[in-house]
Every structure is written in C-alpha cells, then in structure tokens.
C-alpha cells in the first residue's frame, strides 16, 4: 500500500512551482522515495503528509525565486527584510494549514483564523518598518496576504474548511476576494509599519 502512497497533491504542485524546470521531476522523485520508503512506513500517513509539507516549505525558504523577485528597493538592511518576508509568508501558510486541520479535526471555527492572520501581517510589518522603511512594511504584509489568499486558501480548500459554497465559486468573485485580502494586508502593513517607524525613531532618540 505504501509503495503507491502519494503525498498531498497540492504540496507536490507547489514544490514543482518552486523548482527550476530541469529539477521538476528528479527532486519530487527524491521526496516521494523518502516519503514512501522511510517516513510513511515509520510514522503513518498524517505525520508523513506533514513531513512532506514541511519539506516543501523548506524548498520555499531556499528558493531562488523569492531571492530574485524581492525588489531591490525594499531598503537596508536588505537581508533582514527578506528574512522577515520569508518568515511572514511561512508563518501565514503554516497558520492556515493548522487552522484548516484543526477545523476538520475538531470544532474549531475556520473563520476565527482571520484575526490570527492579521496579527501575523501586523507583526511582520512592524518589524520591517522598524528595521527598514514604511514601503518595506507594506510590501511584506501585502506579500503575506497574497500568499494567504492564494496558496493558504488553496490548502484550506483542499483540506475542506476553506471551500466556499457552490454559488460563490466564480472566478471573478474569487479574484475579488484575493484582491480584497491583499488590500487588507497592505492596510495592516501601513499601520504596523507606522508603529515600527515611530518606535524606531523613538528608540533612536
């Protein structure tokens, strides 16, 4: 049974997106081999699926795509802002994943995850604002919101609780929701970033 077991499809698709074209077969093959031969027989399906997702997030963390697509205008110190960006995206996606699993496994209300996501955007924006500038803060929070509204929502949709009623499953409406969440993230980024800048100036005397 394990020899034909498959990790979550959405995670494998995400992994392929993160890889260069020449690695899109061999690298998922390596992870699948480890998943089938070592992790799943030893730890069971749920833990193995979780392991696979963490590996994919590890690829996101080391991805050249993020490194080369973060605009150089984010300000100094660049590496630190970049790190905040990675952490904000990873934290938002992990929170989405845990909230979706908790909703499915227990009585947790999926809608309650909203304030938690906003808190993550705000903290990331505050830190980015403090170490760099307001523009960085807005970009970091908006990027986390985009990840939340696309990859995070897709994960929750696949797991179950993020799936909207059939009458709401229209592309223009879904795109509108993604834009709305992104604008919310940017707004939270503005507020968090302002606090970060104020704190930075206060601390500098």
């Amino acid at each position: 049974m394990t020899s034909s077991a498959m990790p979550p499809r959405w995670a494998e698709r995400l992994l392929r997106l993160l890889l260069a074209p020449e690695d899109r077969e061999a690298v998922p093959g390596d992870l699948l081999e480890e998943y089938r031969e070592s992790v799943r027989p030893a730890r069971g399906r749920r833990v193995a699926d979780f392991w696979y997702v963490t590996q994919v997030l590890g690829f996101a963390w080391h991805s050249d795509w993020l490194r080369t697509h973060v605009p150089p205008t984010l300000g100094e110190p660049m590496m630190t802002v970049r790190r905040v960006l990675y952490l904000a995206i990873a934290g938002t996606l992990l929170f989405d994943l845990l909230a979706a699993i908790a909703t499915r496994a227990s009585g947790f209300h999926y809608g309650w995850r909203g304030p938690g996501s906003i808190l993550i955007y705000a903290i990331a924006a505050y830190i980015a604002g403090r170490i760099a500038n307001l523009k960085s803060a807005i970009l970091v929070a908006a990027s986390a919101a985009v990840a939340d509204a696309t990859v995070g929502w897709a994960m929750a949709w696949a797991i179950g609780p993020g799936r909207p009623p059939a009458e709401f499953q229209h592309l223009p409406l879904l795109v509108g929701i993604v834009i709305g969440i992104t604008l919310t993230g940017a707004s939270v980024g503005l507020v968090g970033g302002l606090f970060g800048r104020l704190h930075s100036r206060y601390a500098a005397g």
Partner: protein
Amino acid sequence: MPDVLGSFEQAVLLAVVRLHGEAYGRAILKEVQARLNRDVAAGAVHATLVRLEQKGFLSSRLASGTEVRAGRPRRYYELQPSGRVALNEARAVVDSLWRGFKWPLRGPA
C-alpha cells in the same frame, strides 16, 4: 585567494565523494544528515547542490527512475576537479587555523 567553502558545502561535497557513483538527491541528504548528526531540510541540500554545480564543483546527469519514485528520474552528482581543489583548500585553511593548538582545547571557558 578564492572564497573558502562553508562547512555545509563541504558536507555536501564530501557526501558526493563518499557515495561514489550513487550520489543522488535522497542518498546525499541521508549521508549529510548522518554525518552532521542532525535533521537537514531537503531544500537546503538541493540549494547547495545547485550552487556547487553552478560554481563548477559538481556535474550531474539524469538516470531513469524506479517504481517507488513513480518513474521519476534520479539526478546523480559527480565531483569535478575544481571541487576537489576547493575541498583541499578548505581543509588546508582549517589545518592552518588549528596549527599550534592541541585538540580538544582545554582550560577555563
């Protein structure tokens, strides 16, 4: 003097050397984990392999996959002469830094 290899780069290159002709992604990951005695993310090893190949320290070729990989190919890595030079230089730097000391260091912390 060119940049000295980092310790993780050395771990990955030495794993490729140790595995002889069997150095593909998963085998390298397991070898690095065993040698460093800690859990290592596959993404970290992959990013390092890509970087070392771009520097010309490694070369790679694709080989056919197995059933457990759902037919997906394996990418095998091989150390290049410049990689061997880089490893020797890294070792020489460490030896030079430690020359004159007895290992392990003793005395007050």
